């Protein structure tokens, strides 16, 4: 899942991005509204964590422009403004959720995950493909009832494939959503991650679930 965090406090930006990355999200960060809007326009994020008080362009104006451009990316407003009027205003301008500072980072994570689920049109936290189950709330994976231990990025890759099960996911999409379009990762990182994931989920049952569609990408499916 790829998240954009727009927050002018460098400390908070660091805390939120570190916390999200360590929980398997690909995170882009921005310290001001103009750059944040540019990133939101040019990338396909699963959710945006957006501060309201920002230099150059405030968060609400950013949100309005984003919606005018037709971008429906789910937005979590993160702000020190806590009145009912502020919340109502933010939600009416197109925000999907609102979190008041100071906040618990666990709550932030839960809300970001909920927004990501909604991004794929699902309210369910359990995804199943054949005997493979992904509990997105507990971030646990089982196959034929046996738990499978995954690294955060492997888990994110599996959850992404599970959310798009039955659809072919291109390598570029995986790079963008799981690795955040970072240029430093190796060119075969996606292949390596897919290979590692295949090995781990086949421990409980050798039947292949991740299929390579040559020239197209990968698909998580029962057959």
């Amino acid at each position, binding site marked *: 899942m790829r998240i954009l965090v727009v927050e002018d406090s460098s*400390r908070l930006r660091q*805390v939120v991005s570190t916390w999200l990355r360590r929980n398997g999200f690909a995170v882009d960060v921005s310290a001001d509204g103009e750059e944040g809007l540019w990133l939101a326009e040019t990338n396909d994020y699963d959710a945006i964590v957006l501060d309201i*008080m920002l230099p150059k362009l405030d968060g*609400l104006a950013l949100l309005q422009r984003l919606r005018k451009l037709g971008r429906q990316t789910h937005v979590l407003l993160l702000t020190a403004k806590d009145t009912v009027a502020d919340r109502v205003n933010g939600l009416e301008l197109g925000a999907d959720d609102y979190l008041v500072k100071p906040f618990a980072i666990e709550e932030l994570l839960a809300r970001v995950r909920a927004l990501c689920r909604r991004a794929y049109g699902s309210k369910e936290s359990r995804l199943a493909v054949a005997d493979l189950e992904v509990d997105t709330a507990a971030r646990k994976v089982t196959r034929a009832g046996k738990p499978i231990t995954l690294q955060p990025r492997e888990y994110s890759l599996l959850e992404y494939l599970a959310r798009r099960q039955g659809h072919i996911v291109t390598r570029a999409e995986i790079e963008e959503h799981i690795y955040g379009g970072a240029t430093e990762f190796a060119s075969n990182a996606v292949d390596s991650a897919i290979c590692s994931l295949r090995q781990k989920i086949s421990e409980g049952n050798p039947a292949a679930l991740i299929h390579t569609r040559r020239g197209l990408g990968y698909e998580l499916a029962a057959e």
Partner: protein
Amino acid sequence: MKTIRQQLTRKLLLTLGLLILGGGFGVYAWARTVLLNQSDAALRAKAQAISSLTEQKGPRLKIEFSDDYMRGFQQGAHDYFEIWQAPDKPLERSPSLRGAHLPNRHGPPDAPLIWNLTLPNGEPGRAAGIAFRPQQSQDNRHRNIPPIDAILVVASERHDLDRTLVIFQMVLAGGGLLLLAATIGIVPRVLSRELAPLRQLADETARINATSLSARFPAEGLPGELAPITARLNELLERLEDSFARERRFSSDVAHEFRTPVAELRGMAELAIKLPDTRAANADHETLAIALQLEAMLNHLLALARGERGELAAKSERVVVAPLLRDVCRWFHDKAAARGLVVECRVDESAATDTDPMMLRSILTNLLDNAVEYAPPGGTVEVDASAADQRLTVRVANAVDQLAEADLPHLFERFWRKDAARSCDGHAGLGLSLARVFARALGCDLTASFAGPSRLAMTLSTTEPAPSKPAGFNL
């Protein structure tokens, strides 16, 4: 609780009731006097007629009544008379007396004695008595016979008079009662209608509370007495609403400015607990920086509160302005250079004044900080200072690109920022308000004005001699 309407109603009813009662008595007394005068005039006319019919013939008196005239004095009639030749010598009386006598009382001919009496038949009556000298017969005048004085008392029953007075009393009492009833019915209604604006004003005033300060009293169609009251109340409400809004904004701003550093502290602590390996090497420095930021904000707020309560005590000592101002300008040199700004400091070397050096330094620091922080890059920040006759003037001018004339009054408001798009850059928006509070404690005024197109000038100037109180507050 007594209301004006109740008191007015009670007093008006009492007053009108007394007026009606007094008026009734007055009218009755006047009517009774008129009727009695008419009755007395009739009695006097009868006495006059009888006396004119009395003639002295020789040593005797003789009365020549016509039958028509005597009809009113016959038995069963209601008029009576009796004539005495001397006080103890009755001469003649009317048949209506049936042999009884009238009291022998009298006055002179031109002022008959008139009184109420009980007639011999037991009925109430009214009598007129006069002493007169009957006319002499022709014969007596030739014979030169001495005249005889006579006494005449004429009386009439006063049934008709008393009945008329009783009917008049009843009419007056009935009319008075009707008038009183009408008054009782009308006065409260009239008062209620006429005092409606007052009641409406009271109701609207009672409805005002902290959540309805935007309400205003109607200014149109009010009585002249209430118009100035509502005008003042509306002004008061406006000031109160402004004050409440300012307080709410202040509370909200305080909470807002504290939330971000607290969120930083909490986030950093939670992250360090959950993911110890992510703890940055400079985490303690960051924590200290946040603590110092919070402390500075608290100190500013406390100083503002003390200043607004008039509890800031300024020292007074001789301060040479030039070195202090140059020191402050030097402090901002690097920050200004980083933003492409040049700070030009022009100060009269001999300028000196009696003031509190720490407060003055704090004011100048805030002004320079504000100028260097918000001036568009590439310009000049001009600092001019002079002092003459114990009056200090410092002017800090810089270019501004977003400020409008309407923003000037807000510059000194706590937490005020021009733009909603702002950052947590360590500027909470307290500096200028604090500078103004310090300026006032030093007997100075701190004002903002435009020194030209898009050029803001902040001017600190002495308005009164420097105070000489002992220092009571450390910055």
